[in-house]
């Protein structure tokens, strides 16, 4: 039987605010346990929530970026359940009238085609704390620092039909929220967590199969692996006559398997109702307009602009706009006077390679875009060759200064004096009569040999184009 995979994702993005969604406690990562849990986060008697403006604005920013329906009113609701990491016995979330309604996002598929993925809604809610399972005399320890951290939960339609599409969608959301500056995207620290709903159905069938929910996946690699495992598990189960049970399953990265979380399964009745401590949020058009004005250029817009404005291939434009810092780096390089296509090449290949090798982030790059631009200008104006430029690049990387001073100090300036080059070529031709004979006999590959000899004699400083031209002229005489 041919099976079709159906996947929907719920992505929890931690919003990059300073303070919590309903209290003035800090959300900085890594504080001492419970040192950032104030009486509001701890759910002490009589305390009350007050909504953080930045969290609202960030949610609206996201809504605008996916062209979502944004209502004039949005309501907070309580989701009631008991769990030690949930101090009040309810989570303040949204149920009816979420802040962001229906929207969509376009992903690129592997074959180069595009697909629109529906986004059902995105709502604001508070995060829970953490249970630490190290043994405290047979007990668990509860750290509530994370309790009250603002989250935007982005819920997709079950529109993805392959694991690749699901991963592409998750990456695209990640890219978008980081671009928008509403999430730091740090998956290790839990700033971006994915829950995946997966079901299978016979190809051609319309009705959806029973889904399972995979919880708390915190890397794209794990997402792919968890979905692969779960897909195979479901197919095996159904093909051997079994039935998929609707349940929540946890992906165990160490064992590379998913397993049922029965403890969370027992008949949850969340008893949602509007939180009487919070009033309806009214979104007026002035607020939306001012957020719209402050929107950064989005990845897709940037990519098409890069292609048209800089004449880049779709692939290069895509690579360079993967992240906002990279795109900014590229544009600063071009702004420093470098040729756009050459810049694309150098930023992705040379700089990308060097960063990769040293394990540095772009923000830690020892070479500034201005320095790189300065170097590339010297290639364009024939001061140095591409090959020499790589030497200069390394020198800038190790802190020896910028391109011009290095070229000067090391005497790397290209020989552009045609007379001087001609003299050297004449000598090379005179010294290698045998090769000249063979070349003239039709072995044209030997041109490289002559170029190499000339470069060697000039320590690479001769302009390769010029050398080629003169050599050919002389050899073909």
């Amino acid at each position, binding site marked *: 039987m041919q099976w079709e995979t159906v996947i929907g994702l719920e992505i929890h993005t931690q919003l990059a605010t*300073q303070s919590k969604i309903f209290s003035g406690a800090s959300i900085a990562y890594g504080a001492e346990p419970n040192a950032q849990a104030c009486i509001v986060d701890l759910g002490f008697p009589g305390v009350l929530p007050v909504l953080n403006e930045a969290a609202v604005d960030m949610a609206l920013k996201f809504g605008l970026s996916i062209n979502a329906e944004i209502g004039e009113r949005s309501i907070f609701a309580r989701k009631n359940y008991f769990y030690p990491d949930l101090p009040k016995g309810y989570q303040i979330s949204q149920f009816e009238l979420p802040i962001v309604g229906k929207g969509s996002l376009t992903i690129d598929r592997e074959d180069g085609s595009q697909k629109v993925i529906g986004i059902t809604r995105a709502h604001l809610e508070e995060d829970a704390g953490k249970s630490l399972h190290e043994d*405290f005399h047979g007990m668990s320890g509860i*750290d509530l620092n994370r309790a009250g951290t603002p989250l935007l939960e982005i819920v997709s339609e079950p529109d993805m039909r392959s694991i690749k599409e699901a991963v592409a969608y998750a990456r695209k959301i990640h890219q978008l929220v980081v671009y928008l500056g509403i999430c730091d995207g740090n998956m290790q620290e839990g700033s971006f967590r994915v829950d995946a709903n997966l079901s299978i159905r016979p190809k051609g069938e319309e009705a959806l199969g029973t889904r399972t929910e995979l919880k708390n996946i915190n890397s794209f690699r794990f997402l792919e692996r968890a979905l692969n495992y779960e897909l195979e598990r479901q197919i095996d189960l159904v093909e051997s006559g079994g039935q998929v049970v609707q349940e929540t399953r946890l992906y165990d990265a160490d064992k590379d398997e998913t397993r049922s979380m029965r403890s969370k399964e027992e008949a949850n009745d969340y008893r949602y109702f509007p939180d009487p401590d919070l009033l309806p949020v009214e979104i007026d058009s002035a607020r939306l307009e001012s957020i719209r004005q402050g929107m950064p250029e989005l990845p897709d817009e940037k990519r098409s602009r890069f292609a048209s404005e800089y004449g880049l291939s779709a692939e290069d434009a895509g690579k360079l706009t993967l992240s906002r810092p990279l795109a900014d780096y590229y544009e600063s390089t071009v702004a420093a006077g470098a040729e756009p296509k050459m810049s694309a090449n150098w930023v992705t290949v040379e700089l990308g390679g060097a960063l990769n090798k040293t394990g540095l982030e772009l923000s830690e790059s020892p070479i500034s875009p201005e320095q790189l631009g300065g170097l590339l200008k010297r290639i364009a104006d024939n001061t140095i060759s591409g090959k020499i430029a790589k030497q200069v690049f390394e020198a800038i990387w190790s802190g020896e200064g910028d391109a011009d001073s290095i070229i000067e100090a090391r005497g790397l300036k290209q020989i552009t004096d045609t007379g001087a080059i001609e003299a050297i070529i004449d000598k090379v031709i005179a010294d290698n009569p045998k090769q000249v004979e063979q070349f003239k006999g039709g072995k044209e590959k030997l041109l490289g040999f002559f170029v190499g000899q000339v470069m060697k004699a000039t320590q690479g400083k001769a302009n390769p184009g010029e050398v080629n031209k003169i050599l050919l002229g002389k050899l073909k005489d």
Partner: protein
Amino acid sequence: MSLDRSDVEKIAHLARMEMDESQIDAYAKDLSNILGLVEALEAADTDHVEPMAHPLHMAQRLRPDRVSEGDHREENQAIAPNVEAGLYLVPKVIE
């Protein structure tokens, strides 16, 4: 609407409250009586009435995003039933 023992047990579990076996019947009776009182609502015609969650027609006020709370862990945990290393201790959480 009348509640029986199993309803009471189910509700008490949802609300995480232990119920003494001997009290369940009394709760079933009291809760049924209260629901009997509430039944008067059924007769009200509310077909075209909007639900009212709040007495005042105000909008939610937004707080500037500023860290205003410092570390009061010591004070807050001074009254906690069981803490160690800054953590609240509870019987093992099984996931």
